[in-house]
């Protein structure tokens, strides 16, 4: 499904959570939605899921607005970091409700994942541990097979092994059947290998949208004597720079080959660090 975000703003009592954001997610891919706390990620995901309305602008999914639109709501599954389900229900009731709601629901996959995560079907939601409650969110998100599946920090309380299992399942399902997966997280190092494309929000605005492998090729740190580095970075997109004892390191976005042929020390920049420098620069 094609997602078009056209000049979307959202204001909460005078505070701008989103400020004229526009971009397009043209095809099913695994997208990483990154940004600092308060950057507007959750607000964006809520508008996309049709849970709230934008103050200005609109999000169109295959040309339609998702708000109060059942055909689209059935195609979108949003799993957040907690409070996904009514506290007084039992696990099996939650699963039944979602199985009714999503026409694409895959019961076989749900059963397999329940076994995998050793989830007690008769437990009440309020009695679940944080990890188990996250596991249930992951099971619902995966088994919904919704053409647009959104995970907003879905794994609070899940240990490293259970998270790894989640990544395995996600990739396996994605490989078998392409769908749009939007993944928002602060554990960037752990998941950036799965992203095909990355979007970074900063203070309610879109700071960057790029293919992950292109980012790996274009973001780099260049170091050397201050004068040489300063000369090299002139006219280039410098994200941040530091100096120490006559030496300078600049974090640059651009053609890495130029830096290599300039005889300076060049190191690639992992996505996590790029995110940090990019969002620090603009004074978060």
């Amino acid at each position, binding site marked *: 499904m094609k997602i078009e975000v056209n000049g979307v703003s959202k204001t909460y009592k005078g505070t701008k959570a989103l400020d004229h954001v526009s971009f397009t997610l043209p095809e099913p891919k695994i997208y990483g939605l990154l940004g600092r706390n308060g950057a507007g990620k959750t607000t964006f995901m809520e508008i996309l899921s049709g849970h709230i309305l934008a103050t200005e602008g609109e999000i169109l999914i295959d040309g339609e607005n998702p708000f109060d639109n059942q055909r689209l709501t059935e195609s979108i599954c949003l799993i957040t970091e907690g409070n996904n389900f009514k506290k007084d229900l039992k696990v099996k009731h939650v699963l039944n409700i979602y199985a009714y709601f999503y026409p694409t629901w895959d019961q076989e996959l749900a059963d397999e994942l329940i076994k995998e995560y050793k989830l007690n079907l008769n437990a009440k939601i309020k009695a679940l541990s944080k990890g188990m409650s996250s596991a249930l969110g992951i099971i619902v998100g995966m088994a919904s097979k919704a053409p647009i599946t959104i995970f907003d920090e879905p794994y609070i309380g899940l240990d490293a092994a259970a998270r790894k299992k989640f*990544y*395995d399942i996600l*990739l396996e399902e*994605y*490989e078998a059947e392409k769908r749009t997966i939007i993944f928002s997280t602060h554990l960037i190092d752990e998941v950036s290998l799965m992203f095909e494309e990355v979007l970074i929000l900063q203070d309610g605005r879109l700071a960057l949208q790029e293919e992950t492998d*292109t980012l*790996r*090729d274009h973001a780099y740190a260049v170091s050397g004597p201050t004068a040489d580095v300063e000369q090299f970075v002139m006219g280039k997109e410098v994200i941040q720079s530091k100096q120490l004892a006559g030496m300078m390191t600049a974090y640059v976005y651009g053609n890495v080959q130029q830096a290599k042929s300039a005889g300076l020390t060049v190191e690639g920049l992992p*996505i996590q660090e790029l995110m940090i420098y990019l969002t620090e620069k603009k004074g978060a």
Partner: protein
Amino acid sequence: MTLQLNENKPIFMQIKEYLEDAIINGTIKPGERVPSTNEFSKHYQINPATAAKGTNELVDEGILVKRRGVGMFVTKDAETILIDKRKQTFYEHYVLPLKDEAHKLNITKSELLEMVNREENRYEN
């Protein structure tokens, strides 16, 4: 597979280079099947599209051939194509940095040649 993926470099390139190295040093021989994008994706927990980009480039270069429903295989000419390709980049990747470093250390041209000659017998017995 022992490849450690490096976060600072495009992943598709690392997959590609891994396969190229395996073909050049004979770990994977002509006619043999290479891991599928699915297998790469699972093994390294990477996006399957990224793995596919690496193998597709090798298909375009005539190093791998796709057989529908069966998998990807190393072509007969793979090694020759790769060696030709690597020779072309040898100057950029090895000779230029060698000369740059020599320049930094004030090593003269004759000293450098002497060092290269000193290694002459290394691969001749």
